[in-house]
């Protein structure tokens, strides 16, 4: 069994163990989950240190992927149409490797914050482990069918995690999330089928779901719907552009970008803290990763054609998300909207198709994957103590919760892009990419970069204003004295989780090469692929 399979399926084993343990042992569930995630961190750290970013540039060549595992999985003879061939095909390159480490770290934080879950522990941890498997699988899969299976497998555990352990409007939030995502992915399925019938595996001569073959224009059948040469039309539009748009919408719902973001504030706010952490920390990245791995790599021509629009959507998301965050009175909603704003930089960076832009987008995803769990964790802390998240209910928290305030300040300043933290480098690179794009490849106009920087300014405004309203001044709490007693400062478990995240954000801010070195080769390879078109 290879390393990646172990990483993916170990949580399932742990989940089954939790499932068969009797109810009396329910205290042990969280330790099993913790041990599982601990092992995953060790594994993914091992993978990280042994990953050679310059040798394993991945993208379209199988030999450039590390830890490749390719086994025949489904082989069905379909009569006149040859064989249905689906491989169990895993591998990592610079685009996917960082997310494995990120996923295991975010999962660790989520498990730590799951200490507060009291009801129905067995179901909770089993679903959490199932979700863990699905996410790891999405980042490792190189066969589109396998990718889709993992991608859809994420939905059901999340539906129940939000719906059963969430807040007051959890039913609405859960179904909204599910319907939005499924809407995107059902149409994605149609494009997958279209790609399947368009692409031939050069080794066996039958149709294939292999993503790497889909990236090579030579493998397309002449006259097939997505063939590059034929330029098939659908509704007066190039079929390839349409395919790209459908896939992009599916992933853009996940990212999410304005105007497909409306599920996010509901889902994030209603979800229990650990699930908000996973949602913001990893699942939004699945969208960004999907755009890079699938939309851009398989449809490079359409990417170039629609880069301007992608950039525009990115800038709109940045500014619209930030303006919305400014208007929120609920702290968790504010952070949810700030996610929309920050993920806009990812799209802007990708749209620039420059080395700086895409590296920036990747780093922004990692950085946001560290900072947003921290922010949601912090919101969870006060919500658990007094069951309120209204900004107006608190004033002068700094006086009674000094440790908490320290971490809030770290998280807020890191998020607004203070130099020294990861978000600064990430946003700076995305903006540099967007700015130079006009002179390098002429895809994005300069004003988009300027629009993006406006978002940073707005980010500073809503975060600092919140800091001032909630933490400074004399202590006035809505719940009076009883709240003051309940609002105890952070305990050791919470300090541990928050310190880990702060250190990560700081280290990546000071030594961004830790991430850049690993992914640079793949980013350059991706740009080469796109510019070939």
């Amino acid at each position: 069994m290879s390393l990646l399979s172990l990483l993916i399926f170990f949580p399932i084993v742990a989940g089954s163990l939790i499932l068969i343990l009797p109810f009396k042992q329910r205290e042990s569930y969280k330790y099993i989950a913790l041990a599982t995630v601990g092992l995953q961190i060790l594994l993914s750290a091992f993978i990280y240190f042994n990953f050679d970013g310059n040798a394993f540039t991945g993208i379209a060549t199988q030999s450039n992927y590390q830890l490749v595992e390719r086994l025949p999985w489904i082989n069905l003879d379909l009569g006149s149409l040859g064989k249905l061939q689906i491989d169990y095909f895993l591998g990592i390159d610079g685009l996917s490797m960082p997310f494995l480490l990120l996923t295991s770290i975010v999962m660790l934080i989520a498990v730590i914050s799951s200490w507060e879950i009291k009801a129905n522990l067995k179901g909770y941890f089993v679903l959490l482990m199932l979700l863990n498997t699905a996410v790891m699988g999405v980042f490792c899969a190189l066969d589109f069918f396998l990718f889709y299976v993992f991608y859809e497998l994420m939905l059901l555990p999340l539906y129940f995690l939000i719906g059963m352990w969430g807040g007051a409007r959890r039913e609405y939030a859960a179904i909204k999330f599910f319907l939005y995502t499924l809407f995107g992915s059902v149409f994605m399925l149609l494009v997958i089928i279209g790609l399947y019938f368009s692409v031939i595996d050069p080794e066996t001569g039958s149709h294939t779901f292999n993503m790497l073959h889909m990236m090579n224009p030579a493998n397309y059948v002449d006259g097939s719907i997505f063939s590059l040469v034929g330029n098939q039309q659908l509704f007066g539009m190039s079929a390839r552009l349409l395919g790209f748009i459908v896939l992009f919408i599916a992933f853009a719902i996940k990212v999410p970008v304005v105007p497909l973001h409306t599920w996010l504030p509901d889902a994030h706010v209603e979800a229990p803290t650990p699930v908000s952490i996973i949602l913001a920390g990893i699942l939004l990245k699945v969208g960004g990763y999907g755009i890079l791995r699938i939309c851009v790599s398989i449809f490079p021509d359409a990417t170039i054609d629609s880069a301007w629009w992608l950039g525009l959507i990115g800038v709109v998301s940045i500014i619209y998300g930030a303006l919305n965050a400014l208007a929120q009175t609920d702290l968790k909603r504010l952070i949810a909207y700030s996610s929309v704003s920050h993920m806009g930089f990812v799209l802007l960076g990708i749209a620039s198709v420059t080395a700086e832009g895409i590296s920036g987008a990747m780093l922004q995803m990692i950085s946001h994957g560290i900072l947003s769990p921290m922010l949601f964790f912090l919101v969870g802390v006060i919500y658990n103590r007094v069951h309120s998240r209204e900004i107006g209910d608190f004033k002068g928290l700094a006086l009674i919760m000094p440790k908490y305030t320290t971490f809030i300040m770290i998280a807020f300043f890191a998020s607004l892009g203070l130099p020294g933290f990861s978000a600064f480098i990430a946003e700076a690179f995305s903006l540099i990419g967007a700015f130079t794009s006009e002179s390098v490849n002429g895809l994005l106009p300069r004003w988009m970069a300027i629009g993006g920087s406006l978002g940073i300014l707005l980010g500073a405004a809503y975060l600092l204003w919140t800091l001032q309203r909630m933490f400074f001044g004399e202590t006035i709490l809505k719940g009076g004295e009883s709240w003051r007693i309940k609002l105890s400062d952070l305990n050791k478990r919470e300090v541990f989780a928050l310190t880990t995240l702060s250190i990560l954000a700081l280290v990546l801010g000071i030594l961004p090469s830790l991430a850049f070195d690993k992914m640079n080769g793949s980013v350059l390879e991706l740009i080469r692929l796109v510019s070939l078109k």
Partner: protein
Amino acid sequence: MQEFLPYLSQLIYSGVSGFAHLIPEIILTIVFILVIVTDLFFPGKKSSAAFWVCIIGITISAVAVYLKNPGLIRISLFNNSIIIDQLALSFKLIFSAVTILFAIFIRYNKALQNHKKGVGDLYMLLPAVLIGLNLMSMSASLLMIYISIEMVSIASYLMVGYASATAKQTEAAMKYALFGSICSAVMLYGMSLLYAFTGSINIGDEAFLTGLSLVSEPAVSLAMILVLVGIGFKLSFVPLHFWTPDVYEGAPTPVTAFLSTAPKIAGFALLIRFIEPFTLFAETHPDKELFDFKTALTIVALLSMIIGNFSAIWQNNVKRMLAYSAIGHTGFALMAIVSFSDQAFTAILFYLGIYAIMNMAAFMLVDRIEEQTGATDVRDYKGLGKILKLEFVCFVVVLVALTGLPPTAGFVAKLFVFSAAFQQYSISESLWTFSLLIVGAVTTVVSLFYYLKIPLYAFLKESESELVPTRKSNGIIYVVIFLSALLIIFGLFPDILK
């Protein structure tokens, strides 16, 4: 009479030699008689003897079907009124499996078991209806089509009315019988027209097809539509779906499970048999189009998907909801029929096989939950997920499969059907086929909305009453667990089914 004399020996010979290929059906006939006799002499408390004879007999006939499987090419028997090929054999295996599940379901259903009539007569109907279903998948002449449909219909009328106690149940039985007989009368009229046009009842005959091509097109279309009405009643596609919700709700749950599965699948088999000669004819004579099945079925498929799925949203009775969703599934499977190719047949067989598992499991769960708690309305499922854990976990698996999401077999089935339709689109580039794909995708999202109502009430909402239902273990739950496990296993390794 005299003129037939020279052919008589040949006719008799072909008749007798044909019986060798009908061993499964002959076994079923014997089982049918055996079940009656057994139940007469050993009624027992639960007609156990009849149950076992029925199960074992059907299994033996299924084995006989299976043994025929390897290397069989197409054979026609009895002057081409019956065709046996791989497709028919696969369909027959599905029918046998569904019938066995139905028998087990009857055995564990309290309402039927406690009925004063007992269940012996119901077991007796099973081999009989199975013969009808098998014949439906093999019919190649108008007469055979009519006889087989009627065999299944008459048995179904009896089943629906079997335990009718309330007005609603009686209404369902009456509605079903009336609607069914009208449909078959209409179909018979259509057949008589076809016979009048051609002088042959054998749809595979060259004379039949060339005869039709000489008749004016509107007349042929009328006759075809009339015949399709009869088949459509079995398939319950729109606009012949009106009977389904009432009948499904009113009939005993095991009967509903059976009716929404086996006759429907048989309807598909029959449809394939019926269209096949016309498609071959259209390929060899491209200038003469007898009847545009593709467009007609596309429209029917679109309507069934849209009306079935959208109507299901408004249902709160779980059985009614599943009835409407079954209409949607019919529409979806028709998508593969429209593309009419070898690959489409593989797709449709896989889809219907999986559909049989999902549907039987879903109704078993509905019945089990009703027996435990008395809940038939989805709103009464509130908070039950925490009490009937096993049942509802299985239910979620089944519903995910019905929606068509991985990692269940429902997804693979959906993928196959989509692929078949896509393949058809890339050949024909017709906007109709494209709209099938789009509507198929959209209605999948719609179906999620109502399927998820069940876990929504069972798990997400808290129960208001403190009533704890009595939990009684019951063998049916093991069957359901087995079926749910199958759905996941076939979803991960669909090769097993080949």
